[in-house]
């Protein structure tokens, strides 16, 4: 078993139009956490929303399969780490727990 050194992995699968969901997630973030954007959540890896998320100072990941499916590969903020399913699983193991925001 690999050692868990990170805290909470926040998994978001909705667009930022779900303002309450994003607010809840932000309110619970602490240093040591990270955010993974999946499904419709990957739209938040672009534009102003990406800037807002990066300001939170936690690692920001986005599932590449969902990015490609939505045709936004060219618009992803360069500071977002685009990950495949295997890395998603690795993150889920490296962080002590996950919270799914949906």
């Amino acid at each position, binding site marked *: 078993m690999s050692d868990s050194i990170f805290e*909470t992995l926040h998994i978001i699968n909705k667009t930022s139009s779900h303002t*309450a969901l994003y607010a*809840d997630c932000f*309110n619970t973030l*602490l240093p040591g956490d990270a955010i993974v954007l999946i499904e419709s959540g990957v739209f938040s890896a672009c534009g102003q929303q990406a800037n807002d998320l990066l300001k939170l100072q936690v690692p920001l990941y986005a599932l590449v399969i969902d990015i490609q499916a939505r045709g936004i590969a060219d618009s992803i903020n360069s500071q977002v780490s685009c990950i495949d399913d295997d890395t998603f699983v690795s993150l889920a193991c490296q962080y002590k*727990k996950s*919270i799914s*925001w*949906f």
Partner: protein
Amino acid sequence: MADKKLLLIFRNPPFSDSSNKDTLDIALACSAFDIPVSLLFLHDAVLQLIKGQQSQALQQKNLINTFKALAMYDIDQLFLLESDLRRFALSTADLTVNCQAISESEMATLIRQFDTVINL
């Protein structure tokens, strides 16, 4: 078997989809397995707890009475946000169960203490 502390998050008002009931059922089931369960009521979920709900005319089973049973299942760690109480002009005295009102920053540290979080 390691002790697992479980946090269940409620986010919906009464008479919405089944997620409040589904989450409550998880709480009762986990209590039977001696899993320590705490509950966090966010935003509209606070409205689920208002005293004096009379839903007979809706012909829909009301969860409020089952929430009152939580203490009988030794589930007494219930949390909500001070900001939500202010938003809905409520106080904890308006609620049918005994809840602890916390700030957003306290919520973040609260969540840290749990091994598993379910947020339906």
